[in-house]
Structures are given as C-alpha cells and as structure tokens.
C-alpha cells in the first residue's frame, strides 16, 4: 500500500506562485514525520494526499487508485489543522458521523466511535457537545475521527498542536499501537517530541523535499555534541542552515 505523489504542482490560485512545484514523493510504510517551516507546503502536501484538492499538474495515487476514486477516500483518513466543532453533535456523534461518511453503517460507526474516543483518552467526554470541548480535546476528537473507520493511511496535520504534555503522551501511545498495516504521515512543529519516535522523517522547504529517509539518517545530521533528547531539533536546525 504505497501513497505516491508524481510531479505534483499546486497553487491556490491560477496566477499565484505554486506552493508545490513538480513534487515527487513516495510515502514509506510506518510513521513518517513531515517537518518544515511555515509556508513550506506541508498542509498542501497533506491535502493533496487526502484527495481534498487535486494537483494542477501531476497525480496522486494509492497503489493503482487515483486520489479521486471513492475507494481511495475510503482507504485514507485526513485530520486537518482546524477541527470543526459541530454545534449539534456530541463528541461521539461527531466521530461516528465521520465513520458513517466514510461508508460504515450506523451501528458499526457508533460502536467504533466509542473505541476511537477511548483510544485518545476522551471516553469521559463522549457525550459532551463538540463545541464545548477545549482546543486540545477537539484535536483528540480529530484524531479519533481519523482512526474510526480503520483507514490504511492516516494523514495528520499538526495533530499535537494545542495538546498538553499528557495529551501528547496519549497521542504518541496511539501512534505506537497502530499496526504495521497502517501508514502514517503527520506534520508537526513539535520536532523534539515526535521525530525521534517515528520511522521516517521528511523535511519540506519552499515546496521541495529537503530530506526524506530514515529517522536514523535524519538524526545523523545533528552535531556530535547535540544534547540527548534534542538531537532531532539539532538535526532539523542543521539541515535548515545547510539550505540557507
């Protein structure tokens, strides 16, 4: 199960400078952390991979499935930066609704929503209206919604933004429990927190892949005197400075 972007070019307006230009990217199996400064094109890459937007040129596919295929959308889950809090729905209903939208029947979606909320440690708030949840809780609802229908590819845009340290720990535990059959691509600014626990790292700068490879290879860019626990940050800084 390989998600691949081939020669993808994308601009938000026809006359605007492309955010991504001729990008080739193959998502490796396991957990990949997508790093890069603001404006690098991380969210755009994730939106293209999710099939939310289509590239102006190039293609996005999952094995042989093009991103506009219904089966593609069923196999991929996307969590954007901004999670909508539905006014009329509880947290559990919002997650179940996501499952239903992804093709699950009502009963399965309802059962799976409880499981997904429990995985992100939000079972106690299942019956709370989504609009009453805090920002961190709402992001966990977003993670639960991404997990609910058993997608084979998870695309998570800043999943830990606004989470407190305990909530981030819960999220890392969720990542660790995902089976080998699930491929994860997550963007983050939380370099130190996530990069060292991932299988792969991709660094995007100005719409171009600056680095993509194993986490070990990424960490090898850190200076020898980098403090333990800060190696990912040091490696990222070193890579950025090389580019500059």
């Amino acid at each position, binding site marked *: 199960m390989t998600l691949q972007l081939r020669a993808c070019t994308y601009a*938000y307006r026809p006359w605007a400078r492309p*955010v991504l230009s001729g990008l080739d990217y193959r998502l490796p199996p396991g957990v990949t952390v997508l790093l890069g400064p*603001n*404006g*690098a*094109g*991380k*969210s*755009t890459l994730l*939106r293209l991979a*999710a*099939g*939310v*937007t289509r590239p102006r040129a190039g293609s996005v596919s999952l094995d042989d499935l093009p991103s506009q295929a*219904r*089966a593609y*959308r*069923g196999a*991929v*889950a*996307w*969590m*954007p*930066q*901004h*999670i*909508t809090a*539905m*006014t*009329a*729905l509880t947290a559990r*209903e*919002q997650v*179940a*609704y*996501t499952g*239903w*939208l*992804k*093709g699950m029947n*009502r009963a399965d979606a309802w059962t799976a929503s409880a499981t997904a909320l429990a995985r992100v440690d939000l079972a106690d708030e299942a019956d709370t209206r989504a609009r009453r949840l805090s920002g961190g809780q709402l992001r966990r609802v*977003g993670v639960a*919604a991404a997990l609910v229908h058993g997608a084979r590819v998870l695309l998570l*845009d800043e999943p830990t933004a606004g989470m407190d340290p305990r909530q981030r720990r819960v999220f890392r535990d969720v990542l660790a429990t995902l089976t080998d059959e699930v491929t994860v691509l997550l963007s983050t600014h939380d370099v130190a927190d996530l990069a060292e626990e991932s299988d792969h790292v991709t660094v995007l700068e100005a719409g171009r892949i600056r680095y993509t490879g194993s986490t070990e290879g990424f960490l090898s860019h850190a200076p020898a005197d980098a403090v333990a626990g800060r190696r990912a940050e040091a490696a990222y800084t070193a890579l950025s400075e090389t580019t500059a």
Partner: protein
Amino acid sequence: MRWWLRARRALSVLLVALGVFTAAVMVLGDATVELPSLLSGSANPVLFVLMAPIPVVAALELSLGSRLVEAEETATRRVRALDSGLVIGVCATALAVGGAIHLLTGNEHAVASGRNVVFLTGLLLCVRVFVGQPAIAAPVLWVFAVIFVGYSGGGHWAFWTVLPKPSGDAPAALAAMLALTIGLLLHGTVRRTVAPSIT
C-alpha cells in the same frame, strides 16, 4: 443519515425558518408599504411578503455551511447529493406551503412567495460556490435591488425582478427553475478551495 440531518441542523434551523415563512406569508398577505423607486422617482407599492423568503434562504445557507469539512471533503458517501436533496426538499416545502395558503385564504401572493424561495435559493447556490458564506448577501441585495431600482412606475416591474411578478407569470417561474437548476449543478460540481492558514 440522522447524524447528517443533525449536522445540517435541519430541525433547529430549517424547520423554524419554514415556520417563520409560513407565518409571514399568512400574516402579511397583500400588505404593502410605499418605498421610493430610484428609477421612477416616485413611490412604489412594495409587498411586505417579498421579504418572506429571506429567513428560509438564510437558514439554508446556515444549514449548508454547518458541515464537518474535514470528513465531508473526503467522504465516500455522496454528501453533495444529500445536500441537493435537502435544498430541493426545502424549496418543495415552500412551494407547497404557498399553494396551501393560497387554497386556504385565496392569497394570490402566497404561491409567488414559494416561487421566490426557489429563485432566491438558486441565486444563493450560484453565488456561494464562489464566495462561500457571504453569499447570503446576494438574495438580500436582490430584494433591495427589486425594491429600489426594479419599479419603473405605472405598476410595471422590470423583467429581471422576478420577485414581484404574479404567481402565474411564466417567465418568472422559468427564471426560478433555471436559477435553482444552475445553482444545484454548481453546488454539485464546483469545489471551492480555501488555502490553509499555514501551508
């Protein structure tokens, strides 16, 4: 389906708006107010009931905008088709309400009010695919344009006004159906892309 209806606030927003529409058409009847016409320079008799579709159209905008973007944009179910069904259902209800009030009270403007809901909904859908939520201004501006620049004196309304035309006016009925059809086609096909705050 139930979650989708609740997400769209079908009961709390749409049913209430249809109730307001029904009450407005029944109560306002053929009451008019004299407002200035910028074209003729004289006063023109404006039916209060011209405003009656606005709550329904505003509620539809609120309803269609009340969506779980992240899941609906990547859904395998045909959410846009469901939305189109919702729009058609609301328009059909407004037409039925207009027809029923006409039968009960003999109010000639009741059927035209239902037709006007159809026309303004079509207008809303045509504009919202390009500008999103601010599209609600389009039907409101249309009503104001009709009132202030649509009247040319002597009881004559410009051909484009649609809203003040009598219920039996075939071009107005055609315009309403055409607006709704184009609106639904655009709603079903055009994807509006909004750049994320941080790319």
